[in-house]
């Protein structure tokens, strides 16, 4: 398996309740997995644990047989080769779009950097926006820059935290499709968390429903569709059946 998460446990300091409770899953290369849950269900915490921004109390993560963390090993976030797109994108406001993308490419030579920046900007269709500052971009453009920045260093895994929560409803529908295309084109394994079933059904190859830090249900979108998908969504987007 490309990514293997085993028995992940975590609780925040000074609390007794487990935020993540014995969470395990394996993912194949290039697959898009959605973690779906209400707020407080522990979905964002799982992303932070995988990213190395929090330290789990138990569990392990292996990427291509390489241990990222377990009982003995704990790689710092900067050494994991995992990319992340934050809910508010976290684009560095004092850097241009190009500089934001270049930030994670310090291991490349100057020419290679230039080439890679161009590639990812083309991938997200923002070739002409390299010299702009984040505040000069729309919400959708900012999100695409955040994705470009995260995928530029060729991470093994990309994590997306509520990627559509800052967008208006109309833009959400458009960007959902774009994002799936970008992720598939780049063949990057991804996990994204959302509280919106529409996002999960539209984007994911696999869905995991989370409740109180534990897995409540899982399967392909089409498997979960009949059981839990609201009828109005089915009516709006019938083409998704059978993804």
């Amino acid at each position, binding site marked *: 398996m490309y990514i293997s998460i085993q028995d992940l446990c975590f609780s925040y*300091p000074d609390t007794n309740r487990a935020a993540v409770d014995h969470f395990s899953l394996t993912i194949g290369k290039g697959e898009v997995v959605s973690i779906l849950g209400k707020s407080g269900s522990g979905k964002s915490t799982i992303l932070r644990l995988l990213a190395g921004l929090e330290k789990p109390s138990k569990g392990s993560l292996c990427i291509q047989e390489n241990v990222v963390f377990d009982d003995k090993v704990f790689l710092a976030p*900067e050494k994991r080769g995992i990319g992340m797109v934050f809910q508010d994108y976290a684009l560095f406001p004092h850097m241009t779009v190009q500089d934001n993308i270049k930030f994670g490419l310090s291991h490349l030579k100057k020419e290679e950097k230039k080439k890679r920046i161009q590639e990812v900007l083309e991938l997200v269709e923002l070739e002409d926006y390299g010299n702009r500052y984040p505040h000069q971009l729309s919400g959708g453009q900012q999100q695409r820059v955040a994705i470009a920045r995260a995928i530029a260093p060729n991470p093994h895994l990309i994590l997306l935290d509520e990627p559509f929560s800052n967008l208006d409803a109309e833009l959400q529908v458009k960007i959902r499709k774009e994002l799936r295309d970008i992720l598939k084109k780049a063949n990057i394994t991804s996990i994204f968390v959302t509280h919106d079933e529409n996002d999960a059904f539209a984007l994911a190859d696999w869905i995991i429903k989370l409740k109180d830090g534990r897995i409540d249900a899982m399967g392909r979108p089409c498997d979960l569709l009949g059981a839990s998908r609201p009828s109005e969504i089915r009516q709006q987007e019938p083409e998704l059946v059978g993804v």
Partner: protein
Amino acid sequence: MLRVKRNKGFLVEELGCWTVQRKLSNVNAWTVSAVIIMALLFLPNLTIVSGIFSPSNDNWAHMKEFVLGSFIKTSLILIGATGFLTIAIGLSLAWLIAQYQFPLRNFLKWALVLPLSIPPFIGAYTYHGIFNYTGVIQTTLRDGFGKDLNPAYFDIMNIPGAVFIYTLFLYPYVYSITRIFLSQQSASLIESARMLGKGPVNIFFQVVIPISRVAIIGGSSLVVLEVLNDYGVVKYYGIQTFTTGIFQSWFGLGDIETSIKLAASLMGFVIFILMAEKLLRGRRQYNYSTTKVRPLPLIRLKGWKAFMATGYGLLILSLGFLIPVVQLIDWTILTFGTIPTEEFLIYVKNSVTVAGISATVIIIFALIVGNFSRLVHGKAAKLLPKLTILGYSIPGAVIAVAVVTAFIGLDGFLAPLYRLLGVDHTLVLSVSLAMLISAYIIRFFAIGYNSIESGYDKIGTDFRDASRLLGVGLTKTFFRIDVPMLKGAIVSGFILVFIDVLKEIPLTLILRPFNFDTLSTKAFQYASDEKIMEASQASLVIVGISALAIVVFYKFLEKEPE
């Protein structure tokens, strides 16, 4: 292909063991540096606490029996009267500016903060100079109107005079905090009161005062701390308080133990005041807050009401800033050239050097401690920095005693090293500039830290996390992401610390090395020697730099989106 394992059970014991391990893993260079800095800032104050338990001597027994009661009484009168008057003036001005539109309102809005640029001791000697027998008031009455009134009528060198001085130069603390609060938080409540048929007077007493309680208490407790910290005004006006007592027993009687005991008593008094403030603040049940901040729509005043509002604002501004500054300019013109330029430039250089070094070190320390506080989870990481910033509520004279005691101890500890290096004195660090700068850092760390901490709060942790996930380590992230994004907080923190050090008196007087003078010590010395006019030049430079910094700072704050 996706495979999910579902596990039952949850081992609490196992989790507990891992929590410890997780905490230990947070120990890195940032944590170590932050803990060392916090210890350095906090530990000297423990010498004061330990002083309480040391055996008493005759001086202390005498002080306790005859003087301590009067120190407490005088301090209570000073803080009570100043507190009441600064609230009356600060709140009324804040309400006028937040609620009404009248001529010169926009100018007065920021100009009313300017009295803060005049250190109270400079205000004290300037007003004494204005009111005394040769001052402008009595001279004008004698020469212009032939009235030779009893000079006792104009004597302000007493407790009411000190209250007058503190009120004029410290009310901006209440004014600025309350004005920001009122203009941001009160719109709906005041409009509701208006819809319920209440007039301006009823709204002021029944709505404005209760909802502003937290801001008023916050501002007035800063005033109280400043009054308790003050040495210049009470010394110049001959009023006996804790701080003058500490100086007297130290320099007059050469009795550092009694100074420590007095400092400990003052610290106890301050803790009592802070606890009372906390109690008064309660659970903030009067604090009306909403995420939708709506500015209060201004009511236009016309006719005599507009005239009165402008007149009141200008009167306070004149008393607190314009009159003393005009008087200082006049004296400066009269005495220009009496202090050799080279000598004066040395005072400027000394002041700028100690203020610059202190502000720089404080900002560096604040950046490290602030970063530690947000990197490390847990109550301890949040609580420790709070303990460190207590320094601001500890009066300068107390910190001076603590720092001297700690540095003398340090010199004793390092004595073998000094001998090894061929130094033939026993006191090295405790007679150096390092001691003064250390004391400034302890005293004013809170000011720099608050600024940096609010900067960290504003940028959050996502940028840092994003940087780390892009392969950049903690320290590099700090320099490439955090520092550029904290630029505003760094600049404002630096300015605030710089002007506070520039104005500082008790610490500088006690801890400066031999023959080392700053603008404020020189101004204080001239004034104490009744060379009021000569004191004006140094004072004017302090006021000029502080006023400029305050204007820049407030204009800068106004432009901030928050």
